[in-house]
């Protein structure tokens, strides 16, 4: 009897998650039908566009990279019970820092320049996370307020920089003034891993940092303290842990991950310039928000955020492919995105309850056995 219970337990989790995504997709199909398009065609195009070939897989991996990094950052901060919705701003800050570094350092050899710009991204994003961290730790300013406000500030600072100090001199000459930098040094291009695709080093970097975050959280003293703060700030304080400092660390580390994502977005981009349309999401692709979702998909654990980010990245890439294939409005993609998030978030508790129910059954079975 015990064996059967264990089987149920193992199936119920994945089944619930699949069901959640399935319900969201079903609603999406209804919307597609209402638009007069063919949902089967649409969803096959979605899967095809995400995983159907070498180019598609590379696109998915590239799209997943910022999601993984932001998600890793969220894993770190949420473990300390700190909500970091400043990802958008931190991604921009890292992108800016990396760009400035590349512009300032010119044509250093690639082995030097690439790590330097990525490091700059870490520092830029880390700083942008440290600000709300310090504000919370030492001035009691709630991090939700400060991160939301700093997102706005970051977007406008970037706008200013791209239109004035950092603008491509050629733009000024031509009088077109498109807000973008010049084509950044080719030595800063993230090396392409697979010829003919856009799969670049950033993917590997992201995975490495996810692993590093795992090691940090579960295999280091500081990580333990961070998690202790998340489990119970009062108990942690009694244990002598400096809670404000841990809060600040959580936000800084989280911001650094986002900043790295930003740098990778610039130097792995098609254009190899820092360019945006004036809004923050024009550059980040909302990865500052979607990364949070990827982290949730991964159970707030850095290692499981890896496949979660790949899947979510595939969803985003595939949805754009679906839009191209059956010519539906792009907004349906966004709505579908939201539905998937809602249903999977809701399903987490269903999974928990099913597992609790199984655990109860197991306990009852154990007690029955012992009588």
């Amino acid at each position, binding site marked *: 009897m015990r064996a059967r219970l264990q089987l149920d337990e193992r199936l119920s989790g994945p089944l619930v998650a699949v069901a959640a995504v399935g319900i969201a997709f079903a609603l999406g199909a209804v919307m597609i039908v209402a638009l007069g398009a063919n949902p089967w065609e649409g969803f096959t195009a979605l899967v095809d566009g995400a995983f159907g070939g070498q180019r598609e897989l590379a696109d998915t991996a590239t799209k997943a990279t910022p999601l993984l990094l932001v998600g890793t950052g969220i894993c770190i901060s949420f473990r300390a019970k700190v909500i970091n919705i400043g990802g958008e701003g931190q991604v921009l800050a890292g992108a800016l820092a990396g760009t400035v570094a590349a512009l300032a350092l010119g044509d250093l050899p690639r082995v030097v320049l690439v790590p330097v710009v990525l490091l700059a991204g870490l520092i830029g994003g880390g700083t942008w996370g440290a600000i709300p961290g310090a504000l919370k730790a030492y001035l009691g300013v709630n991090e939700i307020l400060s991160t939301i406000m700093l997102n706005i500030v970051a977007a406008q600072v970037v*706008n200013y920089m791209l239109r004035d100090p950092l603008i491509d001199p050629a733009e000024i000459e031509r009088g077109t003034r498109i807000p973008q930098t010049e084509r950044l040094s080719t030595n800063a291009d993230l090396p392409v891993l697979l010829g003919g695709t856009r799969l670049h080093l950033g993917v590997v970097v992201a995975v490495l940092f996810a692993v590093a975050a795992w090691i940090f959280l579960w295999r280091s003293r500081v990580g333990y303290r961070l998690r202790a703060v998340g489990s119970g700030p009062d108990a942690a304080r009694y244990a002598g842990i400096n809670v404000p400092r841990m809060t600040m660390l959580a936000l800084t580390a989280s911001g650094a991950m986002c900043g790295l994502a930003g740098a990778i977005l610039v130097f792995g981009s098609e254009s190899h310039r820092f360019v945006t349309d004036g809004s923050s999401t024009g550059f980040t692709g909302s990865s500052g928000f979607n990364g949070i979702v990827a982290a949730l998909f991964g*159970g707030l654990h850095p290692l499981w955020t890896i496949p*979660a980010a790949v899947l979510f990245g595939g969803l985003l890439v595939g949805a754009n492919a679906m839009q*191209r294939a059956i010519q539906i409005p792009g907004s349906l993609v966004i709505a579908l995105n939201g539905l998937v998030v809602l249903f999977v978030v809701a399903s987490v508790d269903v999974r928990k309850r099913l597992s609790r129910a199984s655990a109860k059954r197991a306990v009852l079975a154990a007690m029955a056995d012992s009588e």
Partner: protein
Amino acid sequence: MSVASNHVYITLINTEEKHTMTKPHQFSRRRTIGAIVAVGAALAATGVVSSGASAARPESNGDEFTVAAVLPSAANDLAFSQSMVDSLDRLTEAGVIDDYAISENMFVVEDAATAIRAYADEGYDLVIAHGSQYGGSLQEIAPDFPETAFAWGTAADTFGLENVSGYTASADQGGYVMGAMGAMLAGDGSIGIIGPIEVGDGKLYVDGFEAGALSVRADIGVGINYIESFSDTALAAEAATSFIAGGATVLSGTAQMTVGAIGVANESGVLWFGTNSNQAELAPDIVVASQVYHWEVVLEELVNGIVDGDLGGDTYDINLANGGEVIEFNDEYELPEDVLAAGDELIAQLSSGDLVTGVGADPAEGTEPTGTEPAATTAAADTTEA
């Protein structure tokens, strides 16, 4: 069961739920991987099965000429993006092209780059990158597809590539005409112009409008507000409200967020001049005229060139002379005869080249402005600084 066992049972359950209360993040790792693997396997399986899916969008073959356009905003924004969609519709109706596909709302530059690359990969004859922020990406993509023709606007740069064409809009011309008419209609009031970001054809339009107004009355107040966004409708409305409160009786603006401004103008009975698309239907009482972009005028030339084997390398410009820009007057607005006559005269002069707006560099000629209006431009600078 003994009472002790019951007690154990209850304690266990309580402990678990307490964990739920204080540790809401206690996810089961195994369950989560299982979930992810299951979903992934399902998706991959369908991927394998579906790799031959035919699409609803047109496939390019030897006979059909198919176009794909990547747009930065909504296809029905009554502004920049819609102008391209309308042009593609007219081209299809005229039989110049056989079908087209669009990806709208591509404000994320990387997503747009992916779309451009995907359309090229899928064999479209012409891929249009309709947004100046796409240029950097196009520069990298186009060399990978030497058989595909690309077009980029609004921009005059083709990166020296054989398969890239650029297209621009001399939006300042229509702006000039309407600015002049606006100054005649303004009475004692001033003029307010609302722009998104000071770039591209938007900037040309704003500068042209100002120059045209000042050419009629050098002392008329002209206010310019770039709201730093292509999409913030509420802010555009605020800008309009500020202008009106400051005495503006004529407003104009460019880009899709001006819808908000038009609404405010409508409420206050202030006149509006539109650009990109015909905006008369938004406020029939107060929209005087719109400068409508007819991209098809240059696209047709471009397409014919491609059919003949010339994939690009040139830049095209729509302006009043070639009919790429058309001032469409609102029938429901009673325009005084003298204003209409003045407008028509200016259109004729700008078309023939007798008059130059003096704004920006003339892309078609590639030379510095040889305008007769340097005085107006200086006066413009003075007015905005006052």
